[in-house]
């Protein structure tokens, strides 16, 4: 909270409730909120929009790339497999069409063919010749299958029908996984016969095991029933059924997404290998494949967060600075308005005072002369000269006229000063003139006033009107601070060769040390609850500056306050015009 208080801008807690007739033109907090909101919206909305669009586009591109690569991999592996099987099928086809039935019947010849096939192509384990009845008439290999009857077996029916048969991997009599390729030959002059070779799955499996598949992937082959034809690295031995569903037939390579039983996303690419019972499958974990994307995604998100934070920081700072400047300009305007109002008020009072005084002076003069004449005449008549009552009454009239005369003179003096800039004045006279306005109040409240002016103080050249206002403001404040039976002490003495000091002290409530530093600040007041504007002393400060002086204050709570004004003996006209608005 303390940090918040420190960075809180000046305008944040500003309230106009006691501002009097000159209020701020703006609700600063509202302006701040509006500016921050609008600027943020305008700047951040496109940024966030573009980031989201970029995010989605990049993700889509990455995913598309993954699918494409998987598809390419499946196609390439399928080609390898197809080639492997086609190669061996073609070899058998060549043998069965190149050699006659009798040649194949010869076990040594058959063995030689087998050895050649093993040497040239690899993977062949045995070779058998089966006649049109399905009887294996000749066999070379480790399993002693000569004489077996395959007439009822599906593969024989298939090969008899289609001319070629490739089996899926099975255990059979051998009890080891193997597959079979059978090719039919129909001689021109005789019944067909079939050459059947068994291949072990070692080479088969090697084709897949050598593949390096990204994304913890696995490549394997299943048959159309979902039975593994090659081992599956994750979990699956040959001839086990896979946990994944058999994908539906498609003539071309397909890639699709799938959820495994643990909820992990899988990318499955597959291809039905034509003319075989095999389906090539490549399974990859999407999460692994998306790892580079995840890194990019994190960077993108961090970029967004840092950008947004930076932008907000700049916006908040910038808007706060600008609104603060508006606030300060607004305050300057209010201060100026107050100063103008004050000056106008003083000028009006001056004019009013002059008008009143003038209207009263002539009748007063008449009363003065008539009463004076009466006294003069009575003094000549012996019967009246000794009449103390009569003389007393006349003296009373003359004294009252004199008193009225002093009041009008004072008013006219005040008014005259409003019009003039530089005048030569007697400081003590000005002080007494001002105190003259407050005599009645001082008397009524039993406030004792003591004036001490050093003898060596010459007349000073200054703006008497402003000086009067300064002294009047300070003495008014002193009177306000004091209770009844208070004491006001005015002291004036020389301050060096070129200046004179005027101190006005009261024994009123005083000002706290904390407030003392702020007492000349505009809008600062301890009386704001009672309709004060807080500008009295700041205007006074401004006036002192305008006449080339300085003002200081010392105070102690419950003991009293002393305002000291230092004035130059001579104030130039141009000095006075230089400072117009207190800032």
């Amino acid at each position, binding site marked *: 909270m303390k940090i918040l208080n420190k960075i809180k801008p000046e305008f944040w807690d500003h309230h106009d409730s006691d501002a009097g007739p000159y209020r701020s033109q703006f609700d600063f907090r509202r302006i701040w909120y509006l500016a921050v909101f609008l600027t943020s919206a305008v700047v951040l909305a496109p940024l966030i929009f573009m980031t989201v669009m970029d995010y989605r586009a990049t993700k889509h591109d990455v995913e598309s790339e993954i699918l494409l690569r998987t598809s390419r991999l499946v196609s390439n592996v399928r080609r390898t497999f197809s080639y492997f099987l086609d190669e061996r099928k073609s070899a058998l086809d060549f043998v069965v069409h190149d050699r006659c039935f009798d040649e194949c019947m010869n076990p040594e010849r058959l063995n030689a063919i087998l050895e050649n096939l093993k040497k040239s192509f690899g993977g062949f384990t045995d070779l058998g010749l089966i006649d049109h009845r399905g009887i294996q008439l000749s066999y070379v290999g480790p399993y002693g299958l000569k004489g077996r009857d395959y007439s009822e077996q599906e593969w024989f029916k298939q090969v008899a029908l289609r001319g070629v048969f490739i089996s899926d991997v099975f255990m059979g009599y051998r009890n080891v996984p193997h597959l079979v390729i059978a090719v039919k030959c129909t001689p021109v002059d005789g019944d067909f016969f079939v050459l059947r070779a068994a291949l072990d799955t070692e080479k088969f499996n090697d084709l897949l095991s050598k593949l390096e598949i990204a994304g913890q992937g696995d490549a394997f082959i299943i048959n159309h029933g979902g039975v593994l034809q090659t081992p599956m690295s994750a979990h699956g031995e040959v001839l086990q059924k896979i946990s994944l569903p058999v994908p539906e037939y498609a003539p071309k390579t397909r890639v699709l997404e799938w959820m495994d039983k643990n909820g992990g996303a899988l990318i499955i690419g597959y291809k039905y290998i034509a003319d075989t019972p095999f389906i090539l499958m490549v399974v990859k974990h999407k999460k692994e494949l998306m790892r580079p994307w995840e890194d990019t995604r994190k960077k993108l998100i961090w970029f967004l967060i840092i950008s947004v934070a930076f932008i907000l920081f700049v916006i908040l700072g910038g808007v706060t600075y600008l609104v603060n400047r508006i606030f300060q300009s607004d305050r300057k305007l209010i201060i100026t308005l107050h100063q103008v109002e004050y000056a106008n008020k003083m000028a009006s009072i001056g004019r009013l005072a002059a008008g009143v005084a003038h209207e009263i002076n002539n009748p007063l003069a008449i009363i003065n*002369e008539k009463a004076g004449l009466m006294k003069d005449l009575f003094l000549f008549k012996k019967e009246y000269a000794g009449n103390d009552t009569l003389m007393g009454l006349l003296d009373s009239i003359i004294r009252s006229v004199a008193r009225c005369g002093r009041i009008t003179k004072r008013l006219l003096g005040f008014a005259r000063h409003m019009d003039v800039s530089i005048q030569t004045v007697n400081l003590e006279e000005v002080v007494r003139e001002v105190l003259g306005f407050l005599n009645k109040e001082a008397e009524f409240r039993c406030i004792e006033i003591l004036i001490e002016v050093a003898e060596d103080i010459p007349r000073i050249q200054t703006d008497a009107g402003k000086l009067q206002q300064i002294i009047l403001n300070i003495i008014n404040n002193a009177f306000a601070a004091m209770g009844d039976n208070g004491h006001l002490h005015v002291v004036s003495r020389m301050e060096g060769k070129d200046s004179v000091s005027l101190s006005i002290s009261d024994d009123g409530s005083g000002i706290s040390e904390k407030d003392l530093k702020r007492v000349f600040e505009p809008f600062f007041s301890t009386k704001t609850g009672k309709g004060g504007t807080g500008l009295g002393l700041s205007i006074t400060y401004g006036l002192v500056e305008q006449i080339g002086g300085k003002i200081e204050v010392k105070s102690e709570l419950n003991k009293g306050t002393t305002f000291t004004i230092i004035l130059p003996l001579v104030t130039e006209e141009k000095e006075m015009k230089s400072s117009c608005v207190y800032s």
Partner: protein
Amino acid sequence: MRVLLVDDEKELVEALAERLGIRGIEAHWETTGDAALKRIGEEAFDLAILDVKIPGISGIDLQRKMKVKCPDLKFMFLTGHGSQDDFAAGSSETGEDYYLLKPVHIDELMEKMKKLMSE
């Protein structure tokens, strides 16, 4: 010493003239500028005490016209007006000391008159 008082307030100048008379000063009075000019043309005066604003003519202008007619005539201004323009104009003609604000104390007036005449 012969003094001419010029002020549009008849009651004032009448009473003041009588008071000065009691004190041994021969004082006459007029209430208009024209009458005052005519009077100084016909009679000799040592001092004229003028109001700054008399109907039809300002005290300053009246003073200038009187000076033309009577160059040795001395002047004082006695006025109820407090405007700075009057003060500046009047006091530049007579000096601040001889620009007096009503109501004026008779003794003060006497003292200033004697001082002026002795200059």
